[in-house]
């Protein structure tokens, strides 16, 4: 009996030590692709003609939003069009809205909702610009941008012209790739930032490298002239005013691919980060009074560590190392690495691409959308990148692969990441020309799922099936003085173990995509947490003894 008891104790100690020594194996983020069985059969069509029109590899984004306010996140995909006509000639080119049926399936409600779109769509941004409690949709595209006002009855109205957001009638038919909602002047109304790429005309398409070599490729953006981005101020009456020039945004020509917002220097005002393709990135510091100052170079985030601009594409701006300061991850092309910038405070960043282990993990990947999210609820944000080469024929002239798998890098809780893609489940085995990706808890099981688009192939809905008992907390903020979505609210969560983590409300993350505005925190083994919210209005709110494993709606006092 004694011997059996000793043996049992020994086994217990042994198993405990094995578990302690192998923390990396526990809570490994794991995903399965449920798109097929969920009935969301969306194929992103880029209208490729073989002539390698520059717009073809650039579409398209995806949004996770609860358009009908039933508490279940829905999906909105943007789509391409024919080239060079830039027309959605049939429904296969239509943008698509899928309603979450709350049972693991989705229904296509595009027609009823009236959001099929026009022209060649690129990106999407979701925000409740009129504070009516229903999320509205802005679609960025080639020469045509569209604002869909949510009527609150399951349908949308094209409010573009009414809102003065159309550039279709303007002499400048800009190619917009992405957009984002934020309240830069904290007046309680969401303003709109539109990311514009470059000057392109289908009638005068370049040929690269040449026809006689037997193949064409998509041209280098260096051959094209960049554009300035657009900032629209929300007038509060359903209209917007273009304040690009007076805000200082319009003074900087770039080749914008995506934008995200964060108060990187803690001065209480939201700043803007814009990725530029083959040009230095922009960090627009919010100076107050409706003015922005471009500070990327002095902050150390304009270029990679070698002083070279990379093909910056997707971006996320969140605190990965739980030090209370928002850090940057930028996706780029294979061989350029994906720059990571660690926020040192005082408006200064340090290149952390090598020290985080990201450099080595992504060396042969070309990344698009990306996001710092805590996929295994251990209290530390992990890193996802959607990958695929720009070229769909890169094998013809190089050793690279066009179709690539996505990457999942798990946060090792020490400032580094571990590539765990190989163990991330069937959802990460799929190759493709992945582009947009959005993040949100689609099945409300407390784990962040991912929706990823692929050029000319079915989109992936990566359901998070991570085997973990870690707890979580999701906060759904509702502003009163602040904008109703609570976008820009900064939230600190402290769990019972003393671990503190920070996040902020935004839908702008990744590439051309829009994620669920709900804020998600992994709590590890903690069952309660303390929450502190700094609303965009400046109001502070504290919540004690918040129970884990719930979606908590919090209203601004």
């Amino acid at each position, binding site marked *: 009996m004694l011997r059996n008891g000793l043996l049992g104790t020994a086994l217990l100690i042994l198993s405990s030590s094995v578990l302690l020594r192998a923390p990396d194996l526990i809570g490994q983020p794991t995903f399965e692709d449920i798109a097929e069985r969920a009935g969301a059969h969306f194929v992103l069509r880029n209208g490729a003609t073989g002539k390698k029109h520059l717009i073809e590899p650039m579409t398209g984004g995806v949004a996770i939003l609860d358009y009908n306010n039933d508490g279940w996140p829905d999906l909105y995909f943007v789509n391409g069009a024919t080239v060079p006509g830039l027309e959605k000639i049939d429904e296969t080119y239509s943008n698509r809205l899928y309603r979450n049926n709350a049972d693991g399936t989705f229904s296509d409600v595009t027609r009823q909702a009236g959001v099929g779109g026009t022209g060649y769509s690129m990106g999407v941004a979701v925000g409740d610009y009129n504070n009516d409690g229903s999320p509205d949709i802005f679609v960025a595209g080639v020469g045509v941008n569209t604002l869909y006002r949510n009527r609150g009855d399951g349908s949308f109205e094209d409010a573009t012209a009414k809102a003065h957001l159309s550039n279709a009638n303007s002499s400048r038919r800009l190619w917009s790739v992405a957009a984002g909602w934020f309240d830069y002047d904290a007046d309680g109304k969401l303003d709109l930032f539109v990311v514009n790429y470059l000057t392109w005309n289908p009638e005068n398409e370049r040929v690269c490298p*040449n026809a006689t070599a037997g193949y064409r490729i998509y041209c280098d953006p*260096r*051959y094209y002239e960049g554009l300035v981005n657009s900032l629209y101020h929300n007038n509060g009456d359903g209209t917007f005013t273009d304040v690009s020039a007076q805000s200082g945004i319009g003074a900087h020509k770039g080749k914008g691919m995506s934008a995200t917002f964060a108060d990187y220097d803690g001065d209480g005002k939201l700043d803007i980060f814009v990725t530029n393709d083959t040009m230095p990135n922009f960090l627009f510091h919010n100076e107050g009074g409706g003015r922005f100052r471009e500070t990327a*170079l002095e902050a150390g985030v304009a270029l990679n560590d*070698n002083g070279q601009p990379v093909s910056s594409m997707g971006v996320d701006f969140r605190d990965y190392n739980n030090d209370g300061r928002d850090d940057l991850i930028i996706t780029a092309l*294979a061989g350029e690495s994906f720059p990571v910038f660690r926020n040192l405070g005082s408006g200064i960043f340090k290149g952390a691409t090598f020290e985080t282990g990201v450099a080595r993990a992504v060396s042969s990947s070309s990344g698009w959308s990306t996001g710092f999210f805590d996929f295994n609820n251990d209290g530390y944000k992990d890193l996802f990148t959607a990958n695929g080469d720009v070229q769909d024929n890169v094998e013809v002239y190089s*050793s690279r692969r066009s179709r690539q798998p996505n990457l999942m890098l798990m946060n090792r809780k020490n400032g580094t990441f571990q590539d765990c893609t190989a163990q991330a489940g069937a959802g990460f085995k799929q190759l493709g020309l992945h582009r947009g990706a959005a993040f949100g808890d689609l099945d409300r099981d407390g784990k962040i799922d991912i929706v990823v688009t692929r050029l000319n192939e079915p989109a992936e809905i990566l359901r998070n099936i991570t085997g973990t008992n870690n707890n979580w907390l999701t906060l759904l903020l509702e502003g009163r003085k602040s904008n109703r979505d609570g976008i820009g609210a900064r939230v600190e969560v402290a769990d019972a173990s003393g671990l503190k983590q920070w996040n902020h409300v935004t839908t702008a993350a990744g590439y051309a995509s829009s994620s669920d505005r709900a804020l998600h925190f992994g709590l590890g083994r903690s069952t309660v947490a303390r929450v502190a919210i700094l609303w965009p209005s400046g109001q502070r709110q504290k919540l004690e003894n918040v129970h884990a494993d719930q979606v908590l709606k919090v209203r601004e006092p």
Partner: protein
Amino acid sequence: MIRLLLGFSLTSCLCAVVVFAQDQTLAQKSQRAREAMEQGRFSEAVQLYSQLVREVPGEPRMIMNLALALHSAGDYERATRQLRTVTQMDPRSGAAWFFLGLDSLKLGRTSAAVDALVKAVDLDPVNKMALAELGGALLLVDRAKEAAEYFQRLAALDASDPKAWQGLGLSYAALSQNAFAVLDKIAAESAYVFELLGHSRLNERKYRSAFYFFRRALERNSQLRGVHSALAEIYQATDHPAWAELERERERRLQPVDCAAEPLACAFEQRQFDKIVNQTRGAATAEALYWQARAYTELSAEAFGRLAMLPPSVEIHELLAKAYRIQNLHDRSVAEWQEALKFAPADTRLQKELATSYFLNQDYASAHPLLERLLHLESRSGELNLLMGETLLSMQRPSDALKHLEAAERLSVDQSRAHAALGRVYMALDLPDKAIAQLKQVAANDRDGTLHYQLAKAYSATGKTALAAEELKLYQRLAASAAERHAKLNEEYQITAP
């Protein structure tokens, strides 16, 4: 080469066996040395022949054997010393002069190599290998005209020798470049110069640049023949067939060549390229130099055409590999080096070229194991260490890159590249002080500001904020001027309607 080497070695050894037949021990040693050579145990052969040379001093054939063993073991420095001794003792030893030339080439002493190889060829005018090596050495010292003569002799001896046509093509290409260089000096802004530059860019498939130069050529001489055809080619390649047809029509409308007034153009049209070369020898006019350059280019193309007609060889694949590299088609260059290596799998020079092309093609996963194998053979090669260091850095492995880049720095290859790469490695390893020391050495070469940017980051990491700000300003200035240059070029290099 190995077969030839063994041929020399065996002949000499047989002589040695006869000489020392009376001495059983020496004969056995000589036999063992010969076997070591045959079986590729060159270090052992060196030891044995060194002993034999000491034991039987003043015997040139034995010294020759030692030199061949040293050559085979890769010890070219000692080999040349022995070979010089042999040539002093026996000035009519064609083999000694030949190997002295080869080993001098290996040591980068090209002029000495030329002198030795000239003697080898004089002693044995039908030695095809000596002719080929001499031609190659002369090309290295910019004596292309003489090189062409030796390659012509080689072609006359054996028209099926790919080295002859490769060398001849390269010699003519060099002579064309020489003619252009003189032309550029005396008439830099002439239509002739722009036309030649246009063709050069067109051959490299740099269409926008070619277009720019052809247009400038037409601005100066709208009647210059071939320019409209070239523009048509560019339009066709860039998918503007209607514009291409228009340019072809313009070419057709040009006046036919008047042979009395334009003898060189006439000769060119009749493909009498040798005649043009002869008639323009020593000429100093822009027109003569233009036609001379074009004639040599055509002769070069003819020689390469002959090479292409021969069965596949190292030479044709090497030529194609280099051509693709110039055009930045590195995947194709890789394929050609791989084909070349099928004919000479052990050729480390070709392997180095393949590794370089892998690197340029950003195929670091393939470059890495090949460089590892090459470095195993030549661990003290600065060039290989540099390439390995840069490859590992590109693979995001700065810790592994460090030792190779430090070796490259020590071994005095491309110091600038080594310093710049070391700067990046030290920054990646969070050693900003060391990075500063490296970057400062190359900052003066910075054209686009990237090195000053890295220095700014390094100073910032060491808390030297004033220096960081200064470097950042330098970065901004250089980056702005680089952007301006690029924008200007971009503006100029547009393919527009005829």
